[in-house]
């Protein structure tokens, strides 16, 4: 495991790096093209709701600090294994993998649009990138931190500069004379909140690296909120820049709106600059997703929700199985060219729906722990009593209802979610009843979930059932580990 402690800069970089992605720029372009600069209101609403989530998850982290799995472990201790597996394990991991595949596709499309004459298919760029990122992650957290900081700051600065240039109309291209507002109807604004939500998801990925952060109980909430506000700021600038340089109709049709914007803003320089930004965005988000999902899966394996192989690490302390699995799935999807399909934008929204459900459950977890453990010390407690978690949960439910402005597509998304819930529920019931031998909705004692995070727990217990191993029951000598 890496010994270096990460500071606030790395926390913000991790948060921003995961929040900002090339596919976000696509969503930003689509949303802006739909209703013009009014999309900023949608973004503000979505950002605010995500800040509420950041506060709730920070309180959970202060209550159960330094656990590797994050959201699933909070849910296991509050609601029990069934919801944990359906929403957190299946839904969360699956949607992240799908979204990252789309992210890679955007990367490939962007590079291909800049260098169309090389004869190299877009998917090839994706495959090479994912392979490199997998190797980086297999080498441990230190390298992860160095990569993340560099790409995140470079990305933020690039988008901020390009956004400001476009906002102030000081690009070399010709500004476009077009109305700023295409629609100011409240229904149109709220109908795009689901799309806007995608622009801000992912700040919770700092949680799995909590034990590598100096003073995590203070830096995590502050870092997440700073990340969200930073992202909102430069996305507002980008939206204003779109208005000044990118015809709305052209923007809405483009599969690489960010490259289009860069080209119209700064000519060839902008084209290559936005291409670099795309590379940085994909590198930062896919890199961190592969790593964070692997650590989340390791945490889940520790507590028996996934096979134990996900908890095995190499000499660098990297969870090998998770990195190979999630990176491998992303690589395969891109290699097959499936990620270039237009249906991926639909899958992204389905992924967002599950993300919203997991965020909703997070707020519920806070309320449950407030009731069950009112006096447990919390170095960070969400102010205002239950108001913010309740508002946050309501906000997530509202955004789920507004996942798409197209009613037909919304129904399709709900159907996909329902099908996934049925499949995951079936797996959950079988796994919990037949393998774990636990009750579906009985929360695990918090001390048991905390104990599960210790590597020695698996020596004494079968993590799936929680029962003592037979050799321990018979009184055999077992490793004692270092003194507590």
């Amino acid at each position, binding site marked *: 495991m890496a010994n270096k402690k990460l500071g606030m800069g790395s926390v913000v970089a991790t948060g921003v790096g995961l929040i900002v992605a090339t596919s976000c720029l696509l969503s930003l372009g689509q949303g802006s093209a739909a209703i013009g600069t009014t999309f900023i209101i949608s973004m503000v609403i979505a950002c605010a709701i995500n800040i509420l989530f950041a506060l709730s998850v920070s309180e959970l982290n202060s209550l159960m600090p*330094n656990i590797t799995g994050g959201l699933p472990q909070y849910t296991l201790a509050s609601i029990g294994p069934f919801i944990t597996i359906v929403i957190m394990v299946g839904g969360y991991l699956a949607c992240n993998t799908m979204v990252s595949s789309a992210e890679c596709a955007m990367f490939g499309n962007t590079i291909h649009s800049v260098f169309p004459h090389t004869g190299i298919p877009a998917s090839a760029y994706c495959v090479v990138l994912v392979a490199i990122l997998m190797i980086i992650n297999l080498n441990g957290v230190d390298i992860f931190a160095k990569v993340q900081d560099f790409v995140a700051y470079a990305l933020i600065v690039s988008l901020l500069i390009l956004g400001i240039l476009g906002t102030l109309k000081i690009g070399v291209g010709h500004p476009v004379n077009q109305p700023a507002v295409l629609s100011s109807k409240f229904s149109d604004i709220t109908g795009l909140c689901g799309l806007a939500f995608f622009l801000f998801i992912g700040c919770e990925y700092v949680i799995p690296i909590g034990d590598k952060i100096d003073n995590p109980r203070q830096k995590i909430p502050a870092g997440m909120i700073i990340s969200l506000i930073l992202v909102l700021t430069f996305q507002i600038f980008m939206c204003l820049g779109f208005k000044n340089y990118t015809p709305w109709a052209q923007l809405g049709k483009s599969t690489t709106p960010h490259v289009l914007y860069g080209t119209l803003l700064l000519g060839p320089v902008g084209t290559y600059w936005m291409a670099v930004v795309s590379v940085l965005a994909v590198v930062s988000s896919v890199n961190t997703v592969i790593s964070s999902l692997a650590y989340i899966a390791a945490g889940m394996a520790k507590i028996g929700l996934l096979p134990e192989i996900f908890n095995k690490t190499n000499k660098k302390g990297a969870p090998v199985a998770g990195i190979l699995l999630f990176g491998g799935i992303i690589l395969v999807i891109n290699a097959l060219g499936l990620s270039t399909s237009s249906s991926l934008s639909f899958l992204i929204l389905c992924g967002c729906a599950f993300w919203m459900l997991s965020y909703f459950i997070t707020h519920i977890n806070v309320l449950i722990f407030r009731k069950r453990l009112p006096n447990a010390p919390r170095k960070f407690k969400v102010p205002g009593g239950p108001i913010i978690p309740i508002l946050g949960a309501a906000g997530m439910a509202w955004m789920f209802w507004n996942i798409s402005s197209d009613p037909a597509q919304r129904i399709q998304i709900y159907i996909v979610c329902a099908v996934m819930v049925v499949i995951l529920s079936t797996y959950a019931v079988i796994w919990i009843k037949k393998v774990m031998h636990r009750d579906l909705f009985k929360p695990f004692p918090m001390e048991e979930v905390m*104990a599960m995070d210790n590597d020695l*727990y698996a020596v004494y*217990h079968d993590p799936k059932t929680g029962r003592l191993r037979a050799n*321990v029951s018979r009184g055999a000598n077992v490793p004692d580990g270092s003194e*507590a």
Partner: protein
Amino acid sequence: MKFSRVEIIMDNAKLEALLSAVGQYGISGITVYQVLGCGVQYGSKEYEGVAKTTPTLLPKQVAMVVMPTDQVKAFLKFVSEELYTGHIGDGKIFVSDIEEIMRVRTGEVGIEALEPQKH
């Protein structure tokens, strides 16, 4: 003014977090002693899950401070947040009344025995 004795049984690694409290909450000194002890788990580690029938004494530290009683609540909140990890073994805190305090060298009693001597 009433005073209270606060005795904090904690893990060996947590002392540094408490030292920052000296000078706050009316605390002018701290006494630390190494001890052996156990709680309701009889010294078993949280990952063991084996119910021991005989106690196993684990090395711990006890930090003892004397402070104004009206500051105790705030101090307990600070200490509990600093010591909290969520794991079994975070420790225990005992609060008891102090009847009298004396500085041996000068014979001062009460709050004067805790404050820097005025010249």
